[in-house]
């Protein structure tokens, strides 16, 4: 039986990342769904970059960014006393970057599907913008929000390359399930690798079936 620590670490990482991305993703997706600004395609492209870039590219730049000698890494050290790279917080930061499109794109599609109609109707019934977002847009986008969260969660659990580059392989801190599988294979511990791999396979399959059954209309557009 393999050590189950990486499984719980992965679940923890995915939960925290999903929560953070929900907070960032809702306003960003709302802006993308409603703006007529010229920079919209640029922002959309930046958001979709993690879908097309090799994880090593993202991982490489994140490493540079999180290095204690870089501004962000230095700020983190002075704030917390620890380094951002090779820490759980660093993993969360990296995950939030590479899972961003999995949160933003389904949300944006859902908000666009609701459209201006219900929002305008709410405004004529004395509902402020924020009131209308909370009580009309979000409830009407409920399925899209759920889809976005599930996809973000599942994708965060499945990521390997970025995690390996940014987090390394530190038990209890950065050794998530995909790293653990890699480690087992390297050490020719196929039985353990099998258990973890099959678990991840079944988990991903069930999750995706759930998402597609839930709603066929909020699928990712780029991937």
């Amino acid at each position, binding site marked *: 039986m393999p050590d189950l620590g990486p499984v719980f670490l992965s679940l923890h990482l995915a939960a925290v990342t999903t929560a953070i991305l929900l907070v960032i993703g809702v306003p960003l997706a709302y802006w993308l769904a409603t703006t007529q600004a010229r920079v919209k395609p640029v922002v959309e492209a930046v958001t979709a970059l993690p879908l097309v870039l090799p994880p090593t590219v993202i991982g490489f730049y994140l490493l540079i960014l999180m290095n204690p000698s870089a501004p962000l890494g230095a700020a983190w050290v002075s704030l917390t006393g620890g380094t951002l790279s090779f820490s759980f917080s660093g993993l969360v930061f990296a995950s939030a970057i590479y899972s961003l499109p999995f949160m933003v794109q389904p949300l944006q599609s859902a908000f666009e599907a609701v459209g201006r*109609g*219900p929002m*305008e*109707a*709410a*405004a*004529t*019934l*004395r*509902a*402020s*913008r924020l*009131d*209308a977002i909370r*009580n*009309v847009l979000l*409830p*009407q986008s*409920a399925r899209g929000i759920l889809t976005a969260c599930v996809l973000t969660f599942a994708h965060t659990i499945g990521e390997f390359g970025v995690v390996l580059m940014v987090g390394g392989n530190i038990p209890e801190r950065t050794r998530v399930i995909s790293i653990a599988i890699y480690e087992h294979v390297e050490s020719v511990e196929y039985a353990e690798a099998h258990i973890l791999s099959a678990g991840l396979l079944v988990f991903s399959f069930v999750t995706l079936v759930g998402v597609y059954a839930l709603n066929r209309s909020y699928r990712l557009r780029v991937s």
Partner: protein
Amino acid sequence: MSAERLSLDIALSRKTFSLKVSEDVALAGVTAVFGPSGSGKTTLLKAIVGLEAGAEGRISLGETVWQDSVAGVFVPAHRRAVSYVFQDARLFNHLDVQGNLDFAAKRARKAGRSPDVDAAIAAFGIGELLERRAVSLSGGESRRVALARAVLSCPDLMLLDEPLTGLDRAARREILPFLKGLPEHSGCPVLYVSHDLEEVAALASGIVVMDVGRVLANGPVAEIGRSLDLGPLSEGAGPASLIEARVTRVDGDSGLMALEAGGETLLLPSVPGARDGERLRLFIDARDVAIAVGRPGPMSIRNVLPARVGRIISSDTAADALVDLSIGSQLIRAQITRHALSELQLEAGQQVFALMKSVRLAGDFR
């Protein structure tokens, strides 16, 4: 229900369309904004409600200024005490009917108004629908819920954008009485967009006539109807006349009622609830009016009235001509062939008889 003054001085220009309206509209009861599609009716309403960001100028209702671009004032839609009933109802489909009503009532209360949910449910006959989801309602039902919801917002002005569009005749007849009662139930004036002359005739006391982004006329319906030919602006319908008549006698035996219009008497099938002295608007299709130079002999047409020929509109390219006929103080329009026109040798001022094959109450969609 008091008369309020809506002052508009707004301009908006897009690539293919421009709107320029500088008008004071006296609002009492229902005022129609009438004109063909693309004349800017909906854009005007959206500017009034605050959903048309491109509109520049000044909008005020009574003493309340909603927009004054020069002074940099733009009150956002949710702070304007004006509700809007959209063409497609736009109920919130994540809520049931009760939830939709409460959405409006809750926010009206927060704004210091006192909505009466039970009264609105009774007034619009939606008590049976309260637990239904918005998406499960029929066209007529969802319009009624939308009207009730708009009333519960307790506005100072209600805007209606073609609320009968897309409904079949049965549903239109179902909704019409609720529209008629709207000023009473909402306690505020109603601005009603329509491209259907008959709807306007049935509902409105005032009218703002629009075409290609401009206001052509603005005033009481009866007055504007006399001075301006609204027929060509009315979509789908051919030339028609609109006259006001007073019920003088309701005869239960024959099923007919007598109405007095312009000093003459008309006979019509009586309608349920018609009372002596009541004023009704009649709608007469110009193709249903024939002209006789002398009094015709016995015939099945009941409404034969002496009339005087007024303006004659005829062109070499059209087979038909339009003839204005004065019956006392009322004006009706007849559509006859040019061939008939030349054979009868009609001239302005000539005394003739108008034969009206069908006269119906405006808005009686049968």
